């Protein structure tokens, strides 16, 4: 049974269609990327999953049940534009927000200590939120999102404001949550993080699905028939190479449909070129994003 099942969901605000017939499912043991340009309908979709707003039509099922008050305690949500009680101490803020998720008050202290310790923030436990840096506050928000051990964790731009050390800590945490069997939905504009973490993605634009599926399969689908070569020596003329593009660190050779990368590598080595790197060119998610979304906006 999928942890999240979105079936033909639509939502409009006055005359503006935010989500138009969107369907997807998210399983446990996976990190799922929800990506798309600004105004694509990502936040509206997440809010419908959290039962913050109701869809006009369609259905959102969480852990087998229609999203409702009852499902909220089993979810963790970190919104993009989020904050904390500035005048409260870190532990008071965590305690209140965790108790709203139905967590046993006696367990909150110990669990908060474990998480604070893990993120290197135990010394900040008694400090007021307003005394924390933006990155520290973001870490606290992440803790609040997962402290009650939810089965579904939804994170909207979780790396915002984090330094590289904390970014790595958060990435490790997300992988750990996935390995524990939880479903993690990651919505971000940082495509490198999606590439590094996500198993599957849904790219939406104008409220509709543009790309949906396994990240590697999507990349393979967008993979062109070309190779990247970095080496020393003069590049020979090779039959079957129809175009040569010079990049900063390598050269891209675009092949015709009958020529294989193996034939090109054999030819280069045969011509005496010292090869440092040879790889089949795969487009980055960023390029795929631009191609998919750009196509829609043409």
């Amino acid at each position: 049974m999928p942890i999240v099942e979105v079936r033909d969901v639509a939502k409009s605000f006055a005359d503006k269609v935010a989500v138009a017939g969107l369907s997807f499912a998210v399983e446990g043991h996976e990190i799922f990327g929800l990506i798309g340009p600004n105004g694509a309908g990502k936040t509206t979709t997440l809010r419908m999953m959290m039962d913050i707003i109701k869809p006009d039509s369609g259905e959102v099922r969480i852990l087998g049940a229609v999203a409702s008050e009852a499902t909220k305690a089993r979810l963790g949500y970190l919104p993009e534009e989020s904050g904390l009680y500035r005048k409260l101490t870190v532990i008071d803020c965590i305690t209140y927000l965790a108790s709203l998720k139905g967590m046993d008050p006696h367990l909150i202290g110990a669990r908060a200590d474990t998480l604070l310790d893990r993120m290197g923030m135990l010394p900040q436990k008694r400090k007021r939120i307003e005394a924390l840096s933006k990155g520290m506050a973001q870490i606290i928000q992440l803790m609040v999102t997962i402290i009650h051990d939810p089965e579904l964790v939804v994170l909207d731009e979780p790396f915002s404001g984090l330094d590289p050390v904390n970014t790595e800590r958060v990435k490790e945490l997300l992988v750990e949550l996935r390995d524990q069997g939880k479903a993690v939905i990651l919505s971000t504009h940082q495509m490198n993080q999606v590439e590094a973490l996500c198993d599957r993605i849904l790219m939406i634009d104008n409220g509709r699905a543009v790309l949906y599926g396994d990240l590697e399969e999507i990349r393979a689908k967008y993979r062109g028939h070309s190779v990247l070569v970095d080496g020393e020596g003069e590049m020979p003329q090779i039959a079957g190479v129809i175009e040569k593009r010079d990049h900063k660190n390598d050269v891209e050779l675009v092949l015709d449909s009958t020529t294989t990368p193996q034939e090109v590598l054999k030819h280069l080595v045969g011509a005496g070129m010292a090869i440092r790197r040879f790889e089949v060119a795969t487009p980055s998610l960023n390029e795929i994003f631009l191609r998919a979304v750009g196509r829609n906006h043409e």
Partner: protein
Amino acid sequence: MNRTRLVFRHEFVQTIRKKGFIILTLSLPVLAILGIGIFRIASGVAVPAAAVMRIGYVDNVGGFDQFTSQKGADLVHFDSPEAATQALVQRDIDEYFVIPSDYVATGVIARYTLQKELAPPPATAAAIKEFLSANLLAGKIPPNVISRIEAPLIAITTTLTSTGAVAADQGGFASFIIPALFSVLLCFALMFTSNYVLQGLSEEKENRLMEILLSSVSTRQLVTGKLLGRGAAGLLQVLVWVISLPLLLRLASSTIGGLLSTIQLPPAVLLIGVAYFILGYSMFAVLLLGVAAVTSSTREAQALAPIFTMFAVAPFWFSSLLVLVPNSPVWVVFSIVPFSAPVLVMLRLGLTGVPAWQLALSMAVLAFSTVAGLMLVARLLRTYLLMYGKRPHLREILRSIRTG
């Protein structure tokens, strides 16, 4: 624990911990104790012995030679204005007056003093008046009738019930002062407590907490918990004032005495006051929730709030008219209008009393307005609670209320 109760507890605890709340709650008893203390110190330090004035007079009519010892003043006869002036300059007398020969026809006397003054001091004027009237009537009317003419009315009013029995509430200033004081406190409590709700919601909106909260609780749970939590804090404030009031009155009457010692605190006034606080607070808090929903910052919300809370204060603007014409039908109408009802009814309670049907109707309209307001404001909350950094136009707000 129930989520509404969690929100309630959080809001209550956070409100009563605020410095502003603590200062405001304690300010009334502290200021009253301070006032009583200052009175006690001042009355102990500066109690000048009541000096008897010496007022000279020159009688050009003749016959003004009796009753020269009046309350607080001795009247001293002089044969001429020159002699009186000489005595005044030498400070033998405090002032003098000349009774001209045509005094009986005109009533005019000429008064001379060394002090520059706005008008004759009341004690001096009273002493001269009584001296003149007593001498005018001397020999014509018995002395005991003279004193009655000077003070013909000492009215002791007894209010009866419709059955002819002596009413429990005998009216008068002593029974007006508590409801009047209550209406002032009620006004303060309504404004401050409903502002706590506004502040709470605005801060959460401004600090981008709404989405986190709404991913854990429903809008209904959040709003209910907030209204009850902040309202309970306001009620606690009112209770502190209500409990401290009899103690302060007792302290004041033992120190100051006089009228204060006759003031009673009728339990019915307390009950009605608390009922109007709860109803009034609910209505103003609901309105201010709507303000918080459509504004983007605490500052902006607080700037708009007085538009609504000034209606609670409005009855005070007309308080002198209310005292002059307490039975006007206008007051009955405004006792039913929910905005003005809480404060106006409390003021009327001390003046003329308010019939039970008016109380019941007023409270029912207030309760109905609150529920209706909550339903309309819920539409605004659903639409604008997650809208940050942008204030909708009035037309958009009206459309949101209309379409829900």
